[in-house]
């Protein structure tokens, strides 16, 4: 089992999706239960994976490699380091919660819904496991199909527009990445004794030789695709539409997991493969991260719609992750990794909470609410905890991530200025403003609307959805080392690899002036 644990985790939801598609249409209870069982199965396996993972090692673990398309040296090559591990666990953790959250709200075409949610889970898991860029790309694109249907079929009023925008935006970015992938493969083939390859570990080995001028283009192609997914300002415009229109569970997975595919891609591909270009563009990208932090926060502040507010707060939070990544320090990167998890938990939970109030009132407008704390005290409490986690209150998870990121970027020799951290910290204050202000308007004040007076508090199922999330929000806040120690060695070796490769590319450029002319030939 040890060697095939990743495949087991990956194919459990796939098997579930196939079996559910074959179940009789009317058996709603059976379909829901089966979906739940398969997603819990994947969760159980990934918990085992978490415990078995050796956090002291920085290399790839649980590696599997089976030839797939020998003529292009594509293989089914999977493996994880600490960064992927945490994201895999996050994915398998959020999926059953998302299914449980939509237990009652999704009634039409239930079979397709549950099957697509499981396929979506499998697609994202594949992205986090792949050690072959081609395999990565297949999962990356494949996951668009289920998400597209989830938004388009079970979404809100403007769902068609949102679904198409989501699909086309992502595809536009990723197809340029495809060209870059092909270019990398054929670059490997052009080396003496080389052959076409998309194997990531082999590409890492040749990365120092990639001419600097080409690195820039490769980096931009990859980064564009990831920047759309994250999203980095100004490529974020698909996000509010997709988030607001998607059903609650879709938003949870979209914010919780899918956005991380972009930041994960930066860490796994852009930085180690193209370090020269990374350092060249680092101030701009860190700058865009900060713009995202402030812009997201300011736009959140004026949103009349709660779900949109949460959506824009994602832009802000992911800005922190981007800043931490491009600080290229251990603190910054560790902070980014843990912040990815934090954002998955807290924003996922915020979407769940907004979904719960929407199920009751069929509105998400802040002005329709007021004084909800009286009829719904349990709801108000959960909302408070999650909100404080999102703001970054010490003792809860958000603080750990943001603190490490700010520390990392403050100290970063590559950013070279403390002003990045200083400006970004304004975002923390703004987060407190927009979240506390909206909390005040929703939960306090006079409960004037008669519809709000008769609201029922959370049901047992809803509490069951929220409790695990809150549990981990507190756990990470109090004892982050459980998770940080799993990824510490991996981030360390990642930074080491980036610097090695960077030194290598300078050395290559110095010894081979022909490097530039080869680049000329290829274009």
């Amino acid at each position, binding site marked *: 089992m040890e060697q095939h644990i990743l495949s087991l985790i990956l194919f459990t939801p796939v098997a579930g999706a196939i079996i559910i598609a074959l179940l009789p249409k009317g058996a709603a209870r059976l379909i829901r239960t089966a979906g739940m069982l398969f997603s819990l199965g994947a969760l159980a396996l990934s918990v085992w994976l978490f415990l078995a993972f050796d956090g002291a090692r920085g290399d790839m673990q649980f590696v599997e490699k089976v030839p797939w*398309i020998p*003529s*292009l040296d594509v293989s089914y090559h999977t493996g994880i380091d600490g960064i992927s591990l945490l994201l895999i666990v996050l994915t398998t953790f959020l999926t059953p919660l998302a299914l449980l959250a939509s237990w009652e709200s999704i009634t039409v075409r239930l079979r397709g819904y549950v099957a697509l949610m499981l396929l979506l889970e499998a697609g994202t898991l594949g992205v986090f496991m792949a050690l072959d860029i081609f395999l990565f790309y297949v999962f990356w694109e494949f996951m668009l199909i289920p998400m597209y249907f989830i938004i388009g*079929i079970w979404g809100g009023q403007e769902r068609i527009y949102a679904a*198409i925008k989501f699909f086309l935006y992502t595809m536009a970015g990723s197809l*340029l990445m495809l*060209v870059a992938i092909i270019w990398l493969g*054929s670059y490997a083939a052009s080396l003496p004794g080389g052959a076409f390859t998309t194997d990531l570990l082999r590409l890492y080995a040749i990365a120092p030789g990639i001419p600097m001028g080409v690195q820039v283009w490769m980096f931009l192609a990859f980064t564009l695709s990831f920047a759309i997914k994250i999203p980095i300002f100004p490529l974020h415009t698909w996000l509010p539409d997709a988030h607001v229109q998607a059903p609650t569970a879709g938003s949870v997975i979209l914010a919780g997991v899918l956005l991380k595919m972009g930041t994960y891609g930066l860490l796994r591909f852009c930085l180690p493969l193209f370090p020269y270009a990374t350092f060249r563009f680092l101030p701009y990208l860190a700058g865009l991260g900060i713009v995202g932090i402030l812009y997201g926060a300011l736009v959140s502040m004026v949103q009349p719609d709660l779900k949109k507010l949460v959506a824009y707060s994602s832009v802000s939070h992911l800005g922190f992750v981007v800043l931490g990544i491009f600080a290229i320090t251990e603190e910054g990167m560790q902070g980014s990794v843990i912040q990815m998890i934090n954002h998955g938990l807290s924003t996922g939970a915020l979407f769940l909470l907004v979904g719960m109030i929407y199920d009751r009132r069929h509105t998400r407008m802040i002005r329709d609410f007021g004084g909800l704390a009286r009829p719904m005290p349990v709801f108000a409490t959960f909302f408070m905890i999650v909100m404080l986690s999102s703001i970054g209150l010490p003792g809860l998870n958000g603080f750990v991530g943001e603190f490490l990121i700010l520390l990392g970027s403050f100290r970063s020799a590559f950013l070279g200025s403390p002003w990045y951290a200083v400006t970004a910290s304004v975002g923390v204050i703004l987060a407190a403003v927009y979240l506390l202000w909206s909390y005040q308007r929703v939960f306090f004040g006079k409960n004037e609307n008669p519809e709000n007076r008769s609201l029922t508090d959370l049901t047992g199922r809803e509490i069951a959805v929220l409790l695990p999330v809150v549990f981990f929000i507190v756990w990470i806040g109090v004892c982050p080392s459980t998770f940080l120690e799993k990824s510490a060695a991996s981030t360390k070796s990642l930074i080491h690899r980036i610097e090695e490769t960077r030194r290598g590319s300078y050395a290559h450029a110095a010894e081979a002036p022909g490097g530039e002319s080869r680049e000329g030939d290829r274009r």
Partner: protein
Amino acid sequence: MTPPIGDWAAIAPLLVIAGAALIIILVDALFAGTRSPASFIAAAGLAAAAACAFFMGGPTPTFAAFGGMIRAGGFATYFTLVFCLSGLLSALLARSRSRGTAHGEGEFYALMLFGVSGMILMASAGDLIVFFLGLELMSLSFYVLAGFDRRRMTSNEAALKYFLLGAFATGFLLYGIALVYGATGSTGLAGFPVGTGGLHEPRILLAGLALLMTGLMFKVGAVPFHMWVPDVYEGAPTPVSAFMSTGGKAAAFSGFLIVFAPAVLMAQPALRNVLAVAAAASMVAGNIIAVAQSSIKRMLAYSSIAHAGYILSGVVAANSAGSNGVLYYLMAYTLMNAGAFGVVSILESEDGTMLTFDECAGLSRRSPLLAALAGVFMFSLAGVPPFAGFFGKYYVFTGAVEAGYTWLAITGVLMSVVSAYYYLRLVVVMYFNDKPGSAAFDGRPLGLAVLIIAAIALAGFGVFPSILLGMTARCF
């Protein structure tokens, strides 16, 4: 002199199909007025020919027969499989449409088989004259087939337009062959001049090749010789459109690979660049115009221009990845495009009006299986993994990038985004629209069965491309 038996074995699939066509003509006369068994004979003939090609020629590399006029095995075998698949899918789609005794059913299937024999002759040509014979056999069948709904005006228009323009293109092609013969003194493809060395007047060869290229570009429907495509594909009976756009296109591409083999293109950089520009123009024009269509058939017609562009970039690449990519792509394209036309064929009304997007609204509720199949074909055409359409694009673009045509690959992927918009439009109306349209599955299982097999094959070849790549690797 009687050729050795090996020669006849080399063209066995061709003989089987031509034989089946003759039997159909005979049998059809006997069954006048009752339901003709023509479609079954056609299907059996195509299946037998495919089996024949697969088991006899599959493992053998390319070899010459009939004194070098025919080149069988390897390459020809692979294409024979593509053509038989295209014919089989289209014939079964046609069979699933016709109610009772359709007029001239026998002729219809006989012409289809003659078309397939022409295609096989093209792909196994060892001489330009044989290639031309095959091309004419195929084209003449197409001209008639396009006009087969003779009471429908658009079908007549399609036939006439295709015939007039096609005759022109044939003229170009033939003149090209004549010039090549004039320059080199031979029409044989075995010793085809890869360079201009030793030629008295190399410019004549260039002119000849340019004219040949024009003729072939017309047949694949590449810009700027694409004007016939939308009207003909839209006007022709839908199974015929499926047949022309898959088998016909594949046959013309076999011509590209035979005549413009990598070595030939390398020696003629001007022609190669012209071809690259045409490929890019096809992708751009086909995809952008397709966005504006309201008839699904017409959308598919424009999209087929775009696909001709994608496949041409594999030809332009003139390397192993490009050529293998073209072969893989053609098989994938046959499955997905015949499937897409098949969906139209099942859904469209009998009175000959064109199926629009609006009519398909809410199809996923009325006919969930058919909608799911249509979704598979659309995602595959758009090039979304894990379907075969994605891997086809990946291979041809890999070839293009390796050959230094990165800009072509970039054009291709950007235009793929445009194509996703109109392919997904069908998915949108089928799945996301609540207001019901009128189109629905007519309940006859044959057409649905054909589409299910095509969709499974698309997923199978997509997830395990090595099945096909093992075969394409033996083609060159």
